[in-house]
């Protein structure tokens, strides 16, 4: 392999300029192997020509051919010489080699392109990464500076805090000290005061003694005459009895005061209890009826029953005006419960009202309305369906009736119907008979009553006749005619009295009787009276 160093090898350099230089110079200098074959630019055709001519000239054809052969064989290509004979070129192998070399060249070019692409990518990645790195570094710097700043502030604030704490402690200590000073001074003053007071007392005692010594001479009271006591009583000696009496009186005064206060408190208490009970009743009445929600019913059921018990108990208690603690507690507890319920109820109402006012219809309301509509629709449908069913049933019935079915079945059916009808008829007959019997009974009773009445009337008529005769006899010169009509009318009215008590039919019955009775009267003026009477009766 050392041979090819000596042979002039045109260096495939990256710069085409070098090639130009080289070609212009036409020197075959051994530039040395460049291992760095980075770029393989495709030289222009001119330079290619010159390039090619530079390598192989007329003089060194054989040498160049042999060199080429050697190179190719080392690269793994088949030899360009013919196998048996040396120095004869195998064209086919040369072409193959060339082809292979071209293919290789293409591959290499592609590889180079790829590598260059990768290189570019990596380069851009590197740039990107470098930029990121620079930015991050900057950020890191900034944040570090910030941290430092914040730490500094934190330290300052902490020191301030400590200072304030210290100040506070100092102030507290001062306050404590001052308080201690005050208390110590107070005790000192008290002590001093006591000492001075004792001295003063001593002086007073002395003075008192002196004064008392001179008492007999100077201290006196001159009164012209004795004055009667304000309340007219005589003065009394001071004895134990009086002492006891005084004590008694004092206690009486105290007791009366306490009693008065207690009375006032009782009155107040009773009033308050009344008010509480009233409130409780009103609260109960305010609360809504608990029918819809079973849950609440369960809760309130026992409560209501308790309330009833409470009210019952309390009313009893109030009657006797007892006030034991348990009753008091019960009342207050029940009121509290009721109040809570009322509060909840009011809150619920408020929520509902607020919902309505805010306009945001809750899903519930919408659904309920829709529900309503749906329900109405359903109901309408149902109605329609029912109507249709009725129609169909009617049709079926008619069909049944009209359709020619089997004789047996018809007969059976007819029989059934007939039986049914017969039974019904029998029942009705039974009823009818009973009614008839009742009516008969009634009629009999009425007739008996009528007969009785008629008899009574006859008797009455006889009496009346007698009375009239008497009247006639007693008052002959008077205007009998004028008077008789009002009298008769009166009598008729009296008659109609007992008549109106009985049922209408019978009254009509009896009017006829009475009218017939009246018609029997001997008086000739009765006819117009009859009319009047019947009219009168009719109005009854």
């Amino acid at each position, binding site marked *: 392999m050392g041979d090819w160093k000596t042979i002039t090898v045109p260096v495939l350099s990256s710069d085409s300029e070098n090639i130009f230089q080289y070609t212009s110079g036409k020197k075959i200098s051994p530039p040395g192997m460049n291992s760095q074959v980075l770029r393989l630019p495709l030289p222009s055709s001119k330079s290619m020509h010159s390039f090619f001519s530079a390598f192989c000239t007329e003089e060194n054809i054989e040498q160049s051919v042999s060199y080429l052969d050697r190179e190719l064989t080392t690269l793994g290509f088949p030899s360009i010489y013919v196998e048996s004979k040396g120095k004869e070129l195998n064209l086919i192998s040369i072409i193959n080699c060339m082809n292979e070399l071209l293919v290789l060249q293409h591959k290499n070019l592609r590889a180079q392109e790829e590598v260059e692409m990768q290189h570019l990518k990596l380069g851009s990645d590197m740039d990107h990464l470098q930029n990121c790195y620079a930015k991050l570094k900057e950020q890191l710097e900034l944040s570090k500076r910030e941290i430092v700043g914040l730490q500094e502030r934190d330290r300052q604030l902490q020191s301030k805090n400590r200072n304030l704490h210290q100040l506070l402690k100092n102030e507290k200590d001062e306050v404590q000290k001052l308080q201690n000073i005050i208390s110590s001074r107070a005790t000192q003053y008290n002590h001093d005061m006591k000492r001075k007071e004792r001295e003063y007392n001593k002086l007073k005692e002395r003075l008192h003694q002196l*004064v008392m010594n001179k008492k007999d001479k100077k201290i006196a*009271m001159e009164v012209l005459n004795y*004055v009667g006591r304000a309340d007219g009583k005589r*003065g009394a000696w*001071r004895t134990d009895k009086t002492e006891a009496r005084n004590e008694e*009186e004092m206690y009486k005064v105290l007791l009366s005061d306490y009693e008065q206060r207690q009375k006032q408190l009782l009155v107040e208490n009773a009033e308050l209890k009344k008010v509480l009970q009233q409130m409780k009743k009103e609260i109960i009445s305010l609360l809504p009826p608990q029918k819809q929600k079973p849950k609440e019913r369960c809760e309130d059921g026992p409560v209501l029953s308790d309330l009833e018990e409470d009210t019952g108990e309390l009313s009893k208690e109030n009657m006797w005006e007892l006030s034991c603690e348990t009753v008091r507690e019960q009342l207050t507890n029940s009121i509290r419960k009721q109040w809570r319920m009322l509060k909840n109820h009011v809150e619920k109402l408020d929520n509902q009202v607020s919902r309505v006012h805010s306009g945001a219809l809750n899903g519930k309301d919408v659904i309920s309305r829709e529900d309503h509509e749906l329900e109405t629709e359903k109901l309408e449908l149902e109605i329609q369906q029912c109507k249709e069913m009725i129609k169909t049933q009617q049709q079926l019935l008619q069909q049944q009736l009209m359709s020619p079915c089997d004789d047996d079945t018809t007969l059976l059916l007819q029989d059934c119907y007939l039986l049914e009808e017969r039974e019904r008829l029998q029942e009705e007959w039974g009823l009818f008979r009973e009614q008839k019997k009742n009516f008969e009974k009634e009629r009999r009773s009425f007739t008996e009553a009528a007969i009785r009445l008629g008899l009574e009337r006859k008797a009455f008529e006889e009496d009346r006749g007698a009375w009239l005769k008497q009247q006639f006899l007693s008052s002959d010169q008077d205007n009998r005619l004028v008077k008789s009509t009002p009298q008769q009318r009166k009598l008729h009215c009296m008659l109609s009295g007992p008549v109106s008590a009985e049922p209408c039919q019978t009254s009509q019955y009896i009017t006829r009787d009475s009218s017939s009775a009246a018609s029997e009267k001997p008086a000739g003026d009765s006819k117009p009276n009859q009319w009047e009477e019947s009219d009168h009766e009719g109005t009854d």
Partner: protein
Amino acid sequence: ASCVQYRLVVRDASTLQLLQLYTCLDQIQYVEWSSDSLFILCAMYKRGVVQVWSLEQPDWHCKIDEGSAGLVASCWSPDGRHILNTTEFHLRITVWSLCTKSVSYIKYPKACQQGIAFTKDGRYMAVAERRDCKDFVSIFVCSDWQLLRHFDTETQDLFGIEWAPNGCVLAVWDTCLEYKILLYSLDGRLLSTYRAYEWSLGIKSIAWSPSSQFLAIGSYDEKVRILNHVTWKKITEFEHPATIANTKTIVYKEVEKSPSVETERLSFPPARALASSLFSTQSKYDISEVPVSLQYIKPVADRANPKMGIGMLAFSPDNCFLATKNDNIPNAVWIWDIQKLKLFVVLEQLCAIQSFQWDPRQPRLAVCTGNSKVYLWSPAGCVAVQVPVEGDFQIVSLSWHSSGDSMALLSKDNFCVCYLEREEV
């Protein structure tokens, strides 16, 4: 009755006609009527002599001489027949009886502002005593001056005692260095103690409500605390801030209006009435818009008995209102509605308030501020009344008649009686 130097002048209340004139031995320092209005005592502290005069019998006389014991205070007992004299240095209290000429002594009375307290019905008397540096309270029966109860109190230095109007509870409070008020029942049992805070200056004034339901305690911290009679615990606190912000409070502000004098009418010499009206300024009340800020005075800190805190407290006779005065805001009277436990009205005056007193029959408050006007407030409204007097008449204090129809206005040297018309109902 009024006294002029050493003369005692008795006038009729409705006509101010002179009824009697008595002469005493010395300058009279103190005058008091007996409870049945039959006798008047005149105390002359310098001489140590008390003279008693009778209204029915002008010839009757009585003289009580304490001699070298001296006299510091003197008062009637509720039955109108005994006189209690407190001797100098509070050595003892001597009880002189006008009926029996007998003398009783009460030893070691306490030298404090309100050392003797009588119950409203006049049955019992409580006396504050101090022995061996300890405070005691003795309760005496006024009918025979028998000692009923004697008990010690847990106070450092008892400052005052006062009976509740129902006569069953005695309020005992401590010096202003300690905020402590003790409530004792008639038989000497301690019912309750109330202590609002420590160390700061404490109770300045207290007042019982006429029904004995409430006890109002005014303290140096410008607050009034109300205790109720059932639990003796504080039910509310009334604050007296310098700015009133509550819109429901009515603030009446006294405003001076100078009278408009027409120069044409002026004549020389000027008529008397005109002269007085020229120099005296009329004032009326204006309703100020809330929020109102009142004049606040911070007293000097290193002086004793500073002018701060609630100095005056008074309940109205119908138990509906409480009138208070905050010494830090000396120009204002605060009227609280007791039924609602809220501030009702504030009267803002031009000068510092000297005194106020409720009408004994109605919820009507009379206020005087040291000028010649008397101010009346009632729930219907308020009015400023000028005293028609020539010259200066600085009303220092006032006192209502028990019927509520008239009141006496006192200045340093003079006094006048103001009659109020009754409304025709």
